[in-house]
């Protein structure tokens, strides 16, 4: 019956977290409808726009220094244009979350992103992120009868109704390691659009290749230089053809930047500093923006600070959303309704002199309406737009903008209170229950309370949230030391455990502040590529053969899975054009040729043809084997079904892990063996200790697998295994969770062997409940503190960059690791054991 009570507690806990999240991430109030000119509308309607042709080139993840910094930038043509006065450069601050979908919303509607957009970026075909009913400059363009052509990242096509584009083609980032084709698919349209069908008013291009290079090899990858030159030649081509007309504006921009390792999503200076260049023949006639005066591009970096202190601030700094009113003013269309951008002061001189004060007032009015604030309304109504200095109006508007962007969300406070209250009451209840149900108060029972309080209290400090892996590391070293002191004659076992956890720690970077470039996984990907593959094969063989040689059925299962798994990993690497040792490469090609019975194709294409079928075969095999194990367990054909299930799932986890992390599973296994023998022999399989250790290791390995509390490290590369282009979003989401939580799932399965091994069927649900009690308790206490810290710090500077992602991760841990893996899966496995 304990199980039912615990389940009830789990469900109430999940509900309270969900209530809190709904209050914390409310869907933003969006002003509906399209904007029209409000102030002197006739004058505005009849005014001549400053430009009548727009080419918008979005280069994904184009950080400011890629455009301007002498050390890294290869955009030589843009530098030349700028030095001749044809181009104005800017550093555009892109509001976090710095992922493509929210940034595109910012660039088109001018609004600051809703935090949930970052999550929805993954669930791309979710309709709630659609901009059909939201005012934006592309919609305004279409409404004013302008023809828009679009080629590039298909996120645009998900955002906008296709009717607004007179011609379009989407590309997608299906293979992150595709640097060439994805951009070629955009560029190949250019020739025709420039020469034959030059009747458009706006041409939008969105290139993904640079972002892919960043994800794969970081900002200093050897592919970066050629990519810069490729992009630069496209700009050159555009400027020398359509750009020769004075009334054409070419706008080159990044939607966001990237951090030192090439990821993005967070709020570090590198990620938020996107580059922006306005190019036109007309600009030559006007004065350059004051920050660019006398500056010769590329700028020699005077910054001698270490990499992580770089600020990426070049030339004039603006907010990225400022591009929206700027474009609207230049093309003389109304400012989109939800825009919080402020026109760039430097472009005012390009406007009709009669018009720019009207445009300013219009912009001011629109900010006032978005702010929905009495004081600002009063200020607006009493403002003297005719005579105040332009500079003062702009700075006034910048102040309003600052307020608007910092308070992008209105919290639903009653819901926050409800969620908080619920989890507090629940925690108190479970604490009493814990106290009375656990009879003796000794170290092994108090341990989980100490850990929960530590983690709970740490959620008030932003550095500890960012560097949470350090706390887990601290806890784990402490635990092993205590155990080593407690059992002085088990020196070898403790030494093995210590070395294992140290290797796990050294395998990967974690945390959001520092990154070392000599971690084991980086070394395996660079200097020791051959060794990586021998290690991977050794790991898979080791897991395949261990403990399954005594039973033919188990051996068949694991042999099948292991070989398909390694084949897929090799194929995936070949497709991504990474290094695979020659014999392994040849063997994989040979197998693929045999599979497709086609000997004429090229190596790469034969592998490509087989990639999805192999992955699907693997998934179906896992499913079939799980069912087979279940059946054989019922028929008593295999002795130890739990072990076989565990092994099958381990192969699934390896399958969903990056290839340079596969070796980690060998370390996990060694650690696991030495831990379980210690727990069984020295701690008499104590459920409390086992469960606590499992919890600590789940978090510890999650972080050392490259996970952090930032959205930037959510890894998507393995989420599309075996799915073709028309994918099912739930399946992709599931695969993404499995690949990001792979080590945590591994360690969540670890107690099974220890505590369910010699279990009596009539007692199994009690043991299950005892196993789950610490974890539920941990989540209650940690959740209590976390929700409280999010509530108290909801106006804190870091709330969107540090605490909200942490809250998202906490909710994901609860739903995926607790509910799905911890309860549904474990109950299913346990129900196999009977009699």
């Amino acid at each position, binding site marked *: 019956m304990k199980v039912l009570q615990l389940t009830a507690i789990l469900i109430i806990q999940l509900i309270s977290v969900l209530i809190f999240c709904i209050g914390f991430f409310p869907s933003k109030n969006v002003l509906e409808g399209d904007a029209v000119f409000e102030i002197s509308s006739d004058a505005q309607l009849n005014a001549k726009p400053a430009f009548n042709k727009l080419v918008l080139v979005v280069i994904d993840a184009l950080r400011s220094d890629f455009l301007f910094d002498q050390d890294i930038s290869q955009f030589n043509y843009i530098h030349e244009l700028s030095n001749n006065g044809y181009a104005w450069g800017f550093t555009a601050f892109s509001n976090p979350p710095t992922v493509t979908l929210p940034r595109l919303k910012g660039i088109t509607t001018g609004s600051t992103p809703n935090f949930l957009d970052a999550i929805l970026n993954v669930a791309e075909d979710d309709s709630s992120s659609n901009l059909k009913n939201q005012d934006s400059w592309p919609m305004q363009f279409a409404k004013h009868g302008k023809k828009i052509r679009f080629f590039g990242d298909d996120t645009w096509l998900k955002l906008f109704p296709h009717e607004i584009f007179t011609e379009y083609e989407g590309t997608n980032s299906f293979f992150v390691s595709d640097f060439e084709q994805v951009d070629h698919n955009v560029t190949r349209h250019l020739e025709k659009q420039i020469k034959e069908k030059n009747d458009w008013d706006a041409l939008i291009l969105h290139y993904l290749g640079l972002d892919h290079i960043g994800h794969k090899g970081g900002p200093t990858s050897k592919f970066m230089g050629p990519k810069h030159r490729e992009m630069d030649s496209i700009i050159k081509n555009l400027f020398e053809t359509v750009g020769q007309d004075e009334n054409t504006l070419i706008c080159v921009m990044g939607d966001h930047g990237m951090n030192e390792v090439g990821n993005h999503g967070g709020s570090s200076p590198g990620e938020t500093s996107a580059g922006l260049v306005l190019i036109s023949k007309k600009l030559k006639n006007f004065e350059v923006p004051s920050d660019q005066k006398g500056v010769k591009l590329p700028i020699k970096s005077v910054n001698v600070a270490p990499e992580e202190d770089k600020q990426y601030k070049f030339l004039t700094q603006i907010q990225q959303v400022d591009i929206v009113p700027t474009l609207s003013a230049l093309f003389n269309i109304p400012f989109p309704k939800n825009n919080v951008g402020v026109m760039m002061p430097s472009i005012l001189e390009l406007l009709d002199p009669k018009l720019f004060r009207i445009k300013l007032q219009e912009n001011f009015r629109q900010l006032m309406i978005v702010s929905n604030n009495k004081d600002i309304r009063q200020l607006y109504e009493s403002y003297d737009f005719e005579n105040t200095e332009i500079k003062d109006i702009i700075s006034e508007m910048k102040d309003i903008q600052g307020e608007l962007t910092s308070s992008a969300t209105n919290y639903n406070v009653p819901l926050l209170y409800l969620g908080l209250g619920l989890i507090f009451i629940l925690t108190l209840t479970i604490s009493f229950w814990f106290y009375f149900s656990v009879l003796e108060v000794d170290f092994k029972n108090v341990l989980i309370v100490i850990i929960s309080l530590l983690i709970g209290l740490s959620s008030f*400090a932003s550095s500890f949230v960012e*560097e949470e892996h350090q706390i887990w590391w*601290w806890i784990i*070293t402490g635990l092993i030391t205590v155990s080593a002191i407690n059992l002085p004659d088990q020196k070898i076992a403790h030494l093995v455990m*210590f070395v294992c956890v*140290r290797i796990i720690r050294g395998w990967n970077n974690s945390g959001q502040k520092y990154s*070392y470039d000599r971690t084991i996984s980086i070394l395996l990907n660079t200097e020791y590529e051959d060794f990586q593959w021998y290690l991977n094969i050794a790991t898979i063989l080791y897991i395949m053969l261990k403990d399954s040689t005594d039973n033919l059925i188990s051996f068949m299962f694991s042999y099948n899975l292991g070989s398909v798994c390694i084949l897929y990993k090799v194929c995936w690497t070949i497709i991504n054009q990474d290094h695979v040792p020659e014999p392994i490469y040849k063997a994989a090609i040979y197998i693929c040729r045999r599979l497709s019975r086609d000997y004429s194709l090229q190596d790469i294409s034969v592998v490509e043809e087989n990639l999805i079928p192999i992955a699907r075969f693997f998934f179906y095999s896992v499913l079939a084997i799980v069912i087979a194990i279940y059946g054989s367990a019922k028929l008593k054909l295999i002795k130890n079904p739990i072990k076989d299930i565990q092994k099958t799932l381990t192969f699934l986890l390896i399958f969903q892990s990056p290839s340079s992390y596969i070796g980690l599973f060998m370390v996990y296994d060694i650690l696991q063996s030495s831990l379980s023998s210690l727990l069984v022999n020295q701690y008499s399989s104590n459920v409390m200790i086992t469960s606590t250790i499992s919890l600590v290791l789940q978090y510890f390995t999650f972080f050392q697998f490259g996970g952090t509390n930032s959205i930037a490290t959510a890894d998507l590369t393995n989420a599309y295994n075996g799915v073709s282009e028309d994918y099912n979003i739930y399946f992709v989401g599931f695969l993404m969770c499995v690949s990001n939580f792979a080590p945590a799932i591994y360690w969540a399965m670890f107690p099974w062997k220890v505590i369910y091994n010699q279990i009596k069927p009539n007692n199994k649900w009690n043991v299950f409940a005892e196993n789950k009690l610490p974890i539920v308790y941990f989540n209650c206490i940690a959740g209590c503190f976390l929700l409280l810290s999010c509530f108290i710090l909801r106006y804190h500077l870091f709330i969107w960059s540090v605490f909200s992602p942490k809250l998202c991760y906490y909710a994901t841990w609860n739903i995926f690791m607790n509910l799905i893996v911890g309860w549904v899966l474990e109950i299913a496995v346990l129900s196999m054991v009977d009699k």
Partner: protein
Amino acid sequence: MPVKKRANVKKSVTFSDDTTLSHHNTKKKNIDHDHPPVFVRKTIRTVPWHIIGLLYYYIYLSDDYDTMRLLYLLIPSQVLYLVFQFNSATIYGNKILKINYTLILISLSATILLTVPTLLMIIVFGAPLVEKLRESWLLALHACYLAYPAVYSLFNCDFKVGIWKIYFIFIVLGGWISCVVIPLDWDREWQAWPIPVIVGSYLGAFVGYSISAFT
């Protein structure tokens, strides 16, 4: 080999009213002569005040947290502490052992050897493997010389690890707890490796030498 020497040791006269000493005297008959009891007297004399002084020097007086100079100060003061305070509180059998100057030198060099396993331990506890090896080794030296009186006594008392273990544990514990401040984003110079851990292990040693006898 030090077994022979024991016979020559004079019984020292003490005016101490320490109860443990007399307590053990009464149980004289039960003493196993091959494994005589070893313990440290419960006295305030073992409190290592010099560690507080060194810490004060390290934190407030030395420029830029001069870890090297701190070590030069630590070694002699630990020897003095051993000779004048710690050794005279150590009871072996029911005697206070006379200070053995050769052994002082031997254990001084043995302590240096001990830094190698300590360094490995520090790395296992999470110090970087390649970078900052010098700093880690300095930390190992500090930790080892903090444990020096215990090392000496360990040699002097027939390697009975049992009672000396706690001194080592306190030093490790102090260092372990002090790691907490490293990830904080206060951007202070003292957050650099290994300064917090050195301070922590000093505090751990201070607590350890002061109260271990009472545990």
